């Protein structure tokens, strides 16, 4: 077995049923590979990693990996993660969410976790649809697309998850696609190394639901779409606005320094105890 896969097997729970639950060609499997490789690079022991998820296709991810894993209620993963991080700051807390999980039902928690700048990495797999429940439109379903609950066409406008994270105050925001799996490795590595609220948005595909309803083809064809519609941040800087019309940027969108919540709260403790003057 080659090194890359051998490494992945070190982190899988082999008493769980494989192949995993996701559809053939689902991007979550590709992203899981990147996640494991990036976690391995952090140097944290498995005991010190907590992987938290919400509900949906992504919610099923933690069960397959051998960390402290927590599968919470829909949209609330970040709130549980906040409690874990504050109660035991030495733990590395990583949250996996889908687009509905992160910015629909959990939208409020998402912007507040970013605003608070709590040291958590949020990994959001954005496939533009509620896959597990059968293809209903989500806050990231583009205008004009079909879903099982927008049978005539979606008349709502989509959230740009990364831009939302930047505006809400995340200190690191990166976007990649499952087609660019190696870029995902490096984005996650950078996000894990960052102290503060970091976000990695992963453009993925749901060929089973979204692709089928919008005639976008197979997983392969949807990955080709990702390849053809993404531009690196560096390249985009040299392109004209009209050239970028149907493109999205990938790479590091924001990387800035701000003190993380738990470090700030350490100050509060010192003020409270009177060991330091406010």
């Amino acid at each position: 077995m080659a090194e890359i896969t051998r490494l992945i097997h070190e982190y899988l729970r082999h008493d769980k049923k494989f192949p995993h639950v996701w559809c053939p060609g689902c991007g979550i499997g590709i992203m899981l590979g990147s996640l494991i490789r990036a976690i391995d690079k952090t140097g944290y022991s498995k005991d010190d990693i907590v992987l938290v998820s919400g509900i949906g296709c992504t919610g099923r991810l933690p069960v397959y990996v051998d960390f402290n894993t927590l599968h919470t209620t829909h949209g609330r993963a970040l709130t549980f993660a906040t409690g874990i991080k504050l109660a035991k700051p030495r733990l590395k807390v990583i949250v996996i969410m889908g687009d509905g999980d992160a910015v629909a039902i959990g939208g409020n928690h998402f912007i507040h976790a970013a605003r608070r700048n709590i040291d958590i990495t949020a990994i959001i797999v954005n496939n533009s649809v509620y896959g597990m429940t059968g293809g209903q439109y989500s806050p990231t379903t583009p205008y004009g697309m079909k879903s099982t609950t927008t049978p005539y066409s979606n008349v709502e406008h989509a959230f740009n998850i990364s831009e939302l994270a930047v505006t809400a105050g995340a200190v690191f925001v990166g976007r990649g696609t499952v087609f660019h799996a190696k870029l995902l490795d490096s984005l996650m590595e950078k996000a894990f190394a960052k102290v503060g609220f970091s976000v990695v948005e992963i453009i993925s595909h749901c060929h089973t639901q979204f692709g089928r309803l919008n005639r976008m083809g197979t997983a392969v064809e949807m990955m080709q779409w990702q390849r053809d519609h993404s531009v690196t941040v560096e390249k985009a800087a040299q392109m004209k606005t009209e050239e970028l019309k149907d493109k999205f940027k990938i790479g590091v969108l924001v990387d800035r320094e701000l003190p993380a919540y738990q470090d700030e709260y350490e100050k509060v403790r010192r003020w409270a105890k009177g060991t330091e003057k406010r």
Partner: protein
Amino acid sequence: MAEAQKKKDIPHIDIYRAWCKACGICVAFCPTETLARDEGGYPYVKYPEKCINCGWCEIRCPDFAITVEGKKNGKKVRDQFEKESPEKGTAAPGQ
């Protein structure tokens, strides 16, 4: 003798059928058409000698069902291939 030497340097591709869901990603994005799909849609190694050990099939497999074991020569080809790629990830094969 020369023939045997050459064979040894070809990267070894393993496909773990029990985990493979025949999604076709590895085949579609193989830059050298080393892989092909059988009647069931499952991948198989059609032209092993074409493999340049780029590893993308392994990295992109959503089911951890394909591995590429690089041999000496193969690694050299891969290094060269990666050097030619201007950016990590983005200039991927298949592009």
